[in-house]
């Protein structure tokens, strides 16, 4: 009887998922409530978790709770430590949740809410979660080895080197693009700039408190830090109204870029306890808190979506980024559905802390589904804005016109009416001088979040506070990605250069630390400044480049996972990772090809360089304009080369993998699995 009731319930959830997805996909004209998206995602993810993840866990991986995990066998109280399932779930989720699933869906809303929503729901369940789960399983069965180590062991020596180089290159692009998101959110905004600037001394205070006054009381100081940061948000409003202070914190894009570059260098070279670690604690708690607050806000307010399901920009003429819905919707969503970077977390700390093999399913698969939810919430927050406002905020001046009048005329002509007075009133409500040309996704996401939060107590009067609170939240954890990423990039570079000259590899040798920090900061800083100078806003160039590189890393991870599945079961279950891999290869290779060779200057880097070259050759430019144009030509050519390098690296690892699979499946090669031998677990639940 209970079994029957269970089956009936799951049948009902499955039917509800299909009905809700069809309802979202087929609806035209009627306004759609955001709860449709939330429920469609919830039902689909529940079905995916209950049936697909369980099938993979039982039939493919044969997860075995009597087998001791690395956390039990290699327990050392530091890295290897059996941890409670839900605590590790939260830990893993906090590690994988970055700015990508917030910014990507916001940008992809340019196509309307439908394509991005469908990809987030289906891509996360069939691709992203499968990748995270399989890599976590592979690492867990290999003593917690990293993706690079597994690539080297399972595919070959070249695999490990390619994985390392790909990660380093992706990090440089990632750091540049997320820093650009912060620059675009803060330029000309004394309120926002003051709030973010205030987080620096607050972090230093937290660091000193932890080191000298109350060692180890991290929760206590994080709470104090949070109160101070909220005070900083209020202080920012006061500063923005102060005739003496406001000009000090009203900074241009270039000035902000330089400030962030200096910050990145300091964070990389200073002792980690002073700035980086306290910011990381604060950012983690704020991130989790705001995500939960947004979820509660959406469920309570149940806002209607103002953006249409599909916009005219599916044809590739969008103002936010150029390119057709295929492949650029998938490249832009990136981390909200499939994230290559997650494979580094799934083969990092988490496999060393799992107490039972069975926990890999909720932690690996379940956490990615939760990340998909975050992406859905970001999509909702972006789509509750009036389309005219959404495009006015996110479109660069080079596309819609530099003045408010020109911008609203262009956007209105697309069928998304908006007026300059409406934009001015909204800017005044949120305490900004202007909301035009704030490309990058962060400001429109903050506006959407503020719109939802301000539906509660306080109403429109607190719109400014919520807007700047959301900006603070986004900038705080984006800058945490920047500072930690710069430091990790420095370690990677030191590791590589240590082979050339030993002292450069020593992390305690200050000249080496300063030199490699400068090199890493210089690399991403170059791309950041390129983005700031770009007349099309920079995001048009850098976000697709980041999306491509991230998805290519996912292709590397899925190649490793497929190799392991082929070694375990032959061809029987390889479709589980091969289908998402094939999709990612088609999407990323098409996108890369178009970004390099498309004849349209807004899409193809080489066409853009050729167009600028023609303009330069035609003459009539001042020496300064000519120098700027030459720099833009070089940048476009450099971007084409970077994109090409990504393609070649991943094609190499893919070809090695395919050759290995063909050898194994035809019986020409006998390859062994590199799993750690079975050891029976001696641990009961009470041992965790």
């Amino acid at each position, binding site marked *: 009887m209970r079994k029957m009731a269970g089956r009936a319930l799951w049948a009902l959830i499955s039917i509800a998922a299909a009905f809700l997805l069809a309802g979202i996909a087929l609806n035209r004209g009627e306004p759609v409530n955001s709860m449709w998206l939330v429920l469609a995602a919830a039902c689909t993810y529940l079905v995916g978790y209950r049936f697909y993840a369980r099938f993979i866990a039982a039939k493919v991986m044969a997860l075995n709770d009597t087998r001791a995990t690395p956390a039990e066998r290699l327990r050392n*109280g*530091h*890295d290897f*430590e059996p*941890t*409670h399932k*839900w*605590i*590790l779930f*939260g*830990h893993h989720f*906090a*590690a*994988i*949740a*970055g*700015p*990508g699933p917030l910014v990507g869906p916001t940008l992809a809303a340019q196509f309307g809410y439908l394509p991005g929503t469908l990809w987030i729901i289906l891509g996360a369940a069939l691709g992203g979660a499968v990748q995270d789960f399989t890599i976590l399983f592979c690492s867990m069965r290999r003593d917690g080895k990293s993706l690079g180590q597994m690539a080297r062991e399972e595919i070959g020596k070249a695999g490990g080197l390619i994985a390392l180089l790909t*990660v380093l290159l992706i*990090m440089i692009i*990632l750091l540049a693009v*997320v820093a650009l998101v912060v620059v675009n959110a803060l330029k000309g905004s004394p309120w926002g700039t003051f709030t973010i600037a205030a987080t620096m001394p607050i972090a230093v205070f937290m660091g000193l408190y*932890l*080191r*000298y006054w109350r*060692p*180890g*009381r*991290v*929760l206590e100081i*994080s709470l104090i830090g949070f109160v101070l940061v909220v005070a900083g948000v209020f202080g920012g409003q006061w500063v923005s109204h102060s005739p003496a202070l406001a000009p000090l914190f009203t900074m241009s894009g270039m000035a902000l870029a330089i400030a962030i570059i200096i910050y990145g260098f300091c964070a990389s070279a200073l002792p*980690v*306890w002073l700035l*980086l*670690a306290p910011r*990381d*604690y604060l950012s*983690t*708690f704020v991130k*989790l808190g705001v995500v939960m607050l947004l979820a509660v806000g959406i469920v309570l307010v149940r806002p209607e979506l103002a953006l249409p399901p599909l916009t005219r920009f599916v044809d590739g003429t969008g103002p936010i980024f150029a390119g057709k819905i295929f492949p650029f919707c998938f490249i832009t969503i*990136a*981390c909200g559905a499939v*994230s290559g*970077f*997650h494979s*580094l*977390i799934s083969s*990092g*700390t988490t496999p060393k802390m799992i107490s039972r093999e069975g926990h890999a399913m909720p932690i690996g698969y379940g956490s990615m589904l939760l990340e998909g939810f975050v992406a859905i919430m970001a999509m909702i927050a972006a789509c509750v804005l009036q389309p005219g406002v959404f495009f006015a905020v996110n479109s660069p001046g080079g596309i819609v016109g530099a003045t408010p009048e020109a911008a609203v005329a262009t956007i209105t002509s697309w069928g998304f009416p908006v007026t300059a007075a409406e934009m001015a009133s909204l800017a005044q409500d949120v305490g900004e001088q202007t909301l035009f040309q704030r490309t990058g996704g962060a400001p429109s996401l903050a506006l959407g979040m503020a719109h939802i939060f301000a539906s509660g107590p306080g109403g429109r009067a607190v719109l400014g506070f919520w807007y700047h609170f959301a900006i603070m939240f986004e900038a705080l954890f984006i800058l*945490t*990605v920047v500072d*930690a*990423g710069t*430091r*990790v990039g420095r*370690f990677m570079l030191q590791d590589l250069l240590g082979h050339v000259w030993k002292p450069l590899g020593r992390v305690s040798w200050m000249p080496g630390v300063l030199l490699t920090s400068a090199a890493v900061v210089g690399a991403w800083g170059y791309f950041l400044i390129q983005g700031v100078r770009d007349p099309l806003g920079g995001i048009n160039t850098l976000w697709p480049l*980041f999306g491509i590189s*991230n998805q290519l890393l996912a292709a590397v991870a899925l190649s490793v996972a497929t190799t392991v599945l082929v070694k375990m079961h032959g061809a029987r279950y390889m479709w589980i990772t091969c289908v998402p891999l094939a999709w990612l290869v088609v999407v990323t290779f098409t996108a890369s090809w178009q970004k390099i060779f498309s004849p349209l200057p807004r899409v193809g880097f080489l066409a853009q360089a050729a167009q600028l070259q023609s303009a330069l050759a035609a003459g009539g430019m001042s020496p300064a304009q000519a120098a700027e144009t030459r720099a833009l030509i070089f940048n476009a050519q450099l971007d084409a080369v970077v994109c090409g390098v990504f393609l070649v690296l991943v094609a190499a690892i893919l070809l090695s993998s395919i050759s290995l699979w063909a050898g194994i499946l035809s019986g020409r090669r006998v390859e062994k699995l590199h799993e750690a031998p079975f050891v029976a677990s001696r641990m009961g639940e009470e041992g965790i």
Partner: protein
Amino acid sequence: MKRLLRVIFGLLKELSDESAYRRHLAAHNLRDSREAWRDFSNARFQKKFSNPKCC
């Protein structure tokens, strides 16, 4: 409800490294002190910030 709160508090302690610090003290038979935290956090942060942060 009690169990949920315990998990939430456990998660906060894990995210803040406070649980790891307690384990460190117990494993090395140490008392909570400035030096103990310094040794623990130096090793912890070095490891933590050698891994890339997710995007």
